[in-house]
């Protein structure tokens, strides 16, 4: 597995509240999408489980409430 092939596992992380797109870099390149129900959805690839846990820790460090984590499976070009 490597980044170039784009076959990394993708995840969707839903947080309560809205966060600006400028935080995208902080969340290791995840896409930030605000939704109408007042939640923010982070979507993006993770290299492995350790990376996912690191990301969740960043969420927790910001004092943000985590609503759900969903595995999307890998993206096929």
């Amino acid at each position, binding site marked *: 597995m490597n980044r170039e092939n784009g076959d990394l596992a993708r995840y969707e992380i839903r947080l309560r509240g809205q966060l600006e797109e*400028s*935080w995208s870099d902080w969340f290791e390149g995840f896409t930030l999408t605000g939704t109408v129900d007042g939640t923010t959805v982070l979507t993006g690839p993770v290299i492995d489980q350790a990376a996912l846990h690191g990301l969740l820790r960043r969420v*927790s460090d910001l004092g943000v409430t985590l609503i759900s984590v969903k595995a999307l499976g890998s993206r096929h070009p």
Partner: protein
Amino acid sequence: MAMPVLATKLFIPRLRSGAVPRPRLVERLQEGLRAGRKLLLISAPAGFGKTTLLTEWIADAQRRDPLLRVGWLSLDESDNDPSRFLTYLTNALQRADPAIGAGAAVLTLPVTSFEPALTGLINDVAQRPQTIILVLDDLQVIEAPEVRDALVFLLEHLPQNLHVAVASRSDPLLPVARLRAGDELTELRAADLRFTADEAAAFLTEMVDLQLSADDIAALESRTEGWIAGLQLAALSMRERSDVSGFIHGFTGSNRFVIDYLAEEVLQRQPEQVRAFLLRTSILDRLTGPLCDAVTGEAGSSEMLASLERENLFVIALDDRRHWYRYHHLFADVLRARLRADKPDRVAELHRLASAWHEQNDLPEEAITHALAAGDSERAATVIEATVPSVRQSRQDATLLGWLKLLPDDVIRRRPVLGVYCAWSAFVSGDVEAVEPRLSDAERALAARNDDGEPTHRSAAGAELRKLPVTIAVYRAALAQAQGNVSGMKEHAGRALDLTLPDDHLGRGAAAGLLGLASWADGDLDAALRAFAEVRTSLRLAGNLADMLATTLVLADLLTPMGRLREAESAFAQGLQLASEQGEPPPQSTADLHTGISELLRERDELPAARAHLQVSEELGERASLPENRYRWFVAMARVREAEGHQHAALDLLATAERLYRRGFFPEARPIAAMRARLWITQGRLTDARAWADEHGLSAEDELTYLSEFGHITVARLLIAQHRADPHEGTIGSAIRLLDRLLAAAEAGRRTGVVLEILLLQALAEEAQGRIPAALPSLHRALTLAEPEGYLRLFADEGEPMSALLRAAAETGTRPEYVRRIGRALRTSGAGTTGPPTLPEPLSERELHVLRLLATELTGPQIARELYVSLNTLRTHSRHIFGKLDVNSRSAAVSRATQLGLI
């Protein structure tokens, strides 16, 4: 560059002025302390005031108990290195009480042996009169299993007077549920830490200096859910603002993350100069004026930091002199995210500036971390190269390995010094496969030249580089040893010896040592002895007295199997003399020298003197002993106890020895498992001893090597004992053939001490068949060889069969004076005990009487008549005796009783 202990990590933060007192939470911690709970856990996300609460509680607890001591440790990611963690843990406890961990011994321990060091600390704490609180702040950074295990070990062996308080952003990987179930845990969680409406009101009023309405306070409290960092940011946003209710309206009506919304507000309200300072310095974990000057490129940072602290802008002082600060974690996160979003191209440059400042100020770890964060591998590699010797000295292997993993391979390949360190790292972490490719790469890099004939590698000139060819050869020899390749070991060690420069005493010592080890593994003890003489000379010239003293044990380990006990003893005597001339504290191997000499005294049956040395060794303690030698004390004591007839105690001591034993560089010529099997044989536990032989794949027909010699002699002992227990099994023939082969090998290797033991066993093998005259030639030879060196226990440990042989030898007039002395040693060991300690149920007087008659030639009916009992009664007695001795035949009972010294 040395690896300093950062005092800021051990500093107890001062309670911020204006902090809202939280008596209800302090009281719960205080109650946990009173109830003697093992762990006080504060688990909540960032910004809930965990550290502040701990600070408030500590101040309160110290007011209540002025004798209370506190050790504080603020953890960070680098504490995942077990050695480093242990260093800081020791330092934190020492701050609480300087009497704890007073020796620096723990600092030199390799990472594999946590328990002895922790046990030392725990014992030190337990001996202190006062209560001690150990605070571990930011425990969430700890992920390394070794460090977690160390903490669990600490909690499981926690002394009564020690309490551990932990603050963590996530539940730590400790047995929290078990502690909770056992009522050994006091925990405060986010729900407990949230500001109540009253606390929020008090806080906002204090911070904003402005009377807010109850509704406003309720709205803010509800929007932030009592999250203290949120309220603090809100307060900062409202300060000196004309339209406060407009702000509150906007904030409470927004859906944006609290932190995102408020940080933006706070930052917007700062003057440009302050905002730029905050963003640029956000990359730093610890801030100090000169460092910030270097990173921002502007003067006046010290004043800036002081004013940020006054303004409550999330700056926390890390020491009393206002020298070092850090940002509140949460605020630092926000600033870093903003920096990366606003000025992504500046980040690397800022890290590079930070790296340069840390390097100039002798803080290599931070210099390396920032260089790596800057993506500047070359800079990182340069600093790592300069730092590695001291990292290795402090044995922070995991730290080193962590850095090396982050460097690209081509950077390492251009730096032979670093490449060789990589090889070493791989070696100590057990990745043996990776060693040789690294060494070859390094060798190629050393040899590579450009068109002008100049070296093309990038390693800095210096002693490390000059000695590198020797180092490479030494590592290759060590690698060969790890792979059991004795000839490769000799080849590379010999090459290293040829390459050493005249002034490189340590390189010479290492090479000679490996050469010696190769000869030792081969059983060529003469050559090994010569090599180690060279090692000692090199160590003396290098001024390394401690290691030179430690090699005394190696000399003794070589001289003993060669039967040169007197030389071994004088080596110890000289070593102890030299050690005593060094004054306090005694050199590190002093205790081991006492242990070593005790074994020689034991052999001469001077058991009280042997015990006296063991006692001195014990009193000197672990700090005067090398970790790899600790097991020796327990082996030596086991042998003394065995000589005194206490086999059970001896077995227990061997079990401890086995736990402490660490496979090091030295051949395991006397495996502890084989020593235990010998004790089992003495006790008649032949099934257990047989299982040992099977487990280690040892049999009478094996090819013999020096390293298996002790095991094979043990097998011969087992076969003789099996013959005594049941002559029909036909084991004696195998024993005799094995002994013949062993004798030839030991004689060829000129191992006279081993020859002696084999001769004794040959004599005992004959005796076991009732052929005493046939036993005498071997015995005679053994006596002749043994007398000048003063051996006694070698004979005496064989017990009754040896008595019989010696009586026969005495009748022929062989060495009468020596034989009498051995006889006395035999009697002292018998007299040292009353009754056999090894029988679960002792024999009655009557049963002992019957047993003695069973040992004669008398038939059953004759014995019954002798005892004035019926044959049936005799059978009942016999059955009881067999049961207690765990045997099922008359001959086995007699043999067992003889071993136990019952008849």
